[in-house]
């Protein structure tokens, strides 16, 4: 996996590069937006780690240029706490993920990995295995022993969202917000009923789920590896 790091501060660049190399990435690093853009156009990396504040172009401008490329290149934006949130929110060219400094090394690597999983799933029809069930995120289909499992659109969307955020606990309202959308006028029972149907469909034993877990008093989370 090739990653381009765009960070103007040498003290930060000099640890981001070995940090990502340690995790098996092939890393190229640049201190200015224009140098980075030339390399990105030329060599199409798998992901770009982009600081929002650069000396020549702003990180937002670089992101916009990357979005104009014919091929989709995922971008993780490194933002400071003092970055103007309005500016980021209102900006037309969205990054795929935002990581706020100070960077927690393991977290940064995990977020880049998660993004790559998402984008490669969208691009290459990535199939995720949950025990004996295969979830094809591109075909939006779950299969057991090759036979499709009948799932409603929202059930699949809920499953796909949890697969994209393995191990992360979400409350019912958060899931409603992310999967049904912030304008959905129903209540959180929709999440509960979809979740129990998903368990029946996906789990070998829905009463003792191995992948679709409840966190008591908080919400739900998914593990890719079976967890008793």
């Amino acid at each position, binding site marked *: 996996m090739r990653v381009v790091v765009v960070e103007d*501060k040498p*003290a*930060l660049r*000099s*640890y*981001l590069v*070995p*940090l990502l190399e*340690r995790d098996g990435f092939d890393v190229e690093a640049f201190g200015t937006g224009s140098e980075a853009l030339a390399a990105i156009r030329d060599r199409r990396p798998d992901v770009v780690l982009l600081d929002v504040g650069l000396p020549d172009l702003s990180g937002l401008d670089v992101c916009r240029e990357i979005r104009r490329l014919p091929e989709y290149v995922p971008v993780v934006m490194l933002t*400071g*706490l*003092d970055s103007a*949130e*309005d500016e980021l*929110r209102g900006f037309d060219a969205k990054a795929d993920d935002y990581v706020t*400094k*100070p*960077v927690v*090394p393991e977290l940064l690597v995990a977020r880049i990995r998660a993004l790559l999983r998402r984008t490669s799933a969208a691009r290459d029809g990535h199939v995720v295995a949950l025990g004996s069930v295969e979830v094809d995120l591109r075909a939006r289909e779950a299969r057991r022993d090759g036979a499709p499992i009948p799932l409603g659109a929202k059930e699949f969307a809920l499953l796909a969202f949890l697969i994209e955020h393995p191990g*992360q*606990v*979400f*409350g*019912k*309202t*958060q899931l*409603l*917000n992310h999967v049904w959308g*912030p304008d*959905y*006028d*129903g*209540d*959180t*029972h929709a999440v509960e009923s979809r979740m129990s149907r998903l368990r029946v469909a996906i789990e070998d034993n829905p009463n003792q789920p191995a992948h679709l877990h409840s*966190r*008591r*008093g*908080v*919400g739900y989370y998914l593990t890719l590896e079976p967890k008793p």
Partner: protein
Amino acid sequence: MTLALLVTVWLLLAAVPFAWWLTTRRRVDVWRSLPVPAALLDADRRVRDQAGPVSEVTFDVSAGLPARGHVIRGRSSDGTPIALAGVRGGALAVALPRDPVADRRDHVLAELGSRLAHDINTPLDALRGHLDLIAHEPISDPARDSVRTCQRELARLQTTAQDLLAFTRLRAGGGRRVQHLAGALAEEAVAALLDRADALGATLTVDVPSERVVVDVAEGDLLRALRNLVGNALTHGLGERRDVQVTVSADTDTVTFAVADSGPGLTSDDLARLSQPLVRGDGVTTTGSGLGLAIVNEVLAAHGSALDVAPRDGGGTVLSFVLPRVAP
């Protein structure tokens, strides 16, 4: 003539107690006289007023209007401290003028804090990253111990720098308001602290309305305030029961966010003291920047709200605040 003289004397005499009350609390401008008392009270027994130089002030008068010489403190949406003062025959809402010395001090602190936070964040970030690289190298056990100590201390410094920057940003005006599902905010704040709760052996739960409840908030700021409240409860309020519960409840007009802990209990005086910037809880020397509750107060003031403290049934403290509910 005599009658006029008598009336004047009577008025002067009547003014003395109030003038005394005013002068003992620095100079106080009478901001707006409110009619008393029934017309003030809405169904929640809160005094509201939406006119005058501030956009909205809410006082909690659930225990009745203040007695003469007593005050209930409130805060306007622009941060002006407001008091509801008990006077003969009712109450007056008064705006306490900002103290110029304190204002100047706040301004200098804000400038200094912002500069400091900017200038030290990047080096701290670099130090943390490079320490992480060293920690992954084959080094001796004493060297590894030293690196771990450095990482721990650095994490503290980073927390302080972030809190300082957040505080100074809030002083300069908070983030942009957006409509957001109230329950999702509370759930996100709780989810962010689950690992910490697990490490402390604490039960952290969240209870939100199943119906759609929307608030108009600066999302990042409100999340920070909620995380600070839950984080404080985990750090200082676990007690023996080790139980922290976050609740969001709503009626037709308002949404209440509450964080209940199982600690030794806080009084409103404790809360007022701990809400001052850089004041930490008694005996707390290990963690925190001393800005946690001050940040919460800044965020809530920017939303026209304020923190309320009440005992929790069965022991502990409930810290809560109320926001207007966006009409469905």
